[in-house]
């Protein structure tokens, strides 16, 4: 919840205020909760609304998502006119020789959090709600008022960028 708020505002202090505002809004409007969604989805929707309105008043520039362009750097692939393997990997991804536990240590986490931070805000909202909070796609579409197709585009771009960040991080640590 705090992370979701943080994704819209500059400072942790402001994000904490957003969470407080959101909880108070929840309390005030609890009798208007219509059970069309789970309580959790409804509450997260309120957090998104509070965070967005706070971001508007702080005039934080809302980064719109770059939704075109490839998710993997084109230089990683062979050219279209390659005689044998057009558009196949030129620089193949190499297996992460990292035990799963390693992925959860602090350094890796901060790589992931930095990658999430660097995302355009709409992509960040979707990946936080879907993959971090674990909501279903229909719930995320309801909260953010976007279509399922748009939701998948944003989710894919966000996940790809986080994967790219992990790849760069592991390549750098293995090189040392």
């Amino acid at each position, binding site marked *: 919840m705090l*992370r979701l708020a943080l994704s819209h505002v500059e400072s942790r202090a402001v994000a*904490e205020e957003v969470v*407080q505002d959101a909880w108070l809004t929840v309390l005030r409007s609890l009798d208007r909760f219509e059970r069309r969604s789970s309580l959790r989805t409804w509450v997260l929707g309120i957090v998104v609304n509070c965070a967005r309105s706070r971001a508007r008043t702080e005039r934080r520039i809302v980064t719109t998502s770059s939704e075109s362009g490839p998710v993997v750097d084109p230089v990683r692939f062979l050219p279209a006119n390659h005689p044998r393997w057009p*558009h196949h990997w030129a620089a*193949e991804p190499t*297996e992460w020789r990292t035990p799963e536990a390693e*992925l959860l240590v602090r350094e890796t986490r901060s790589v992931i959090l930095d990658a999430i931070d660097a995302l355009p805000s709409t992509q960040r909202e979707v990946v936080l709600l879907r993959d971090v909070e674990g909501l279903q796609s229909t719930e995320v579409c309801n909260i953010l008022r976007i279509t399922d197709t748009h939701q*998948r585009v944003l989710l*894919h771009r966000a996940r790809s960028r986080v*994967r790219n960040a992990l790849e760069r991080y592991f390549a750098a640590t293995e090189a040392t």
Partner: protein
Amino acid sequence: MIVTDLPELPCRELVELVTDYLEDRLSPIDRARFEAHLTECEACRTYLEQFRETIRVLGRLPEESLSPEAREALLTAFRGWSRL
């Protein structure tokens, strides 16, 4: 339809379709092309596995918690609320 008759799905296009594949939103033909490519391309299998791993790790990030001050302020607000 025989899978080998389908136009090949090159790696560069496959990486754009991974979420649609995982969410089961590919057309049957694209799904067949996707899977046919995977059986022959180790690099794309690695890519898919890393993508899945990324999703798993995202789902296991620890919850950010409020600072003690913010928590206290919120609890105070809650207490005030219940007295109304």
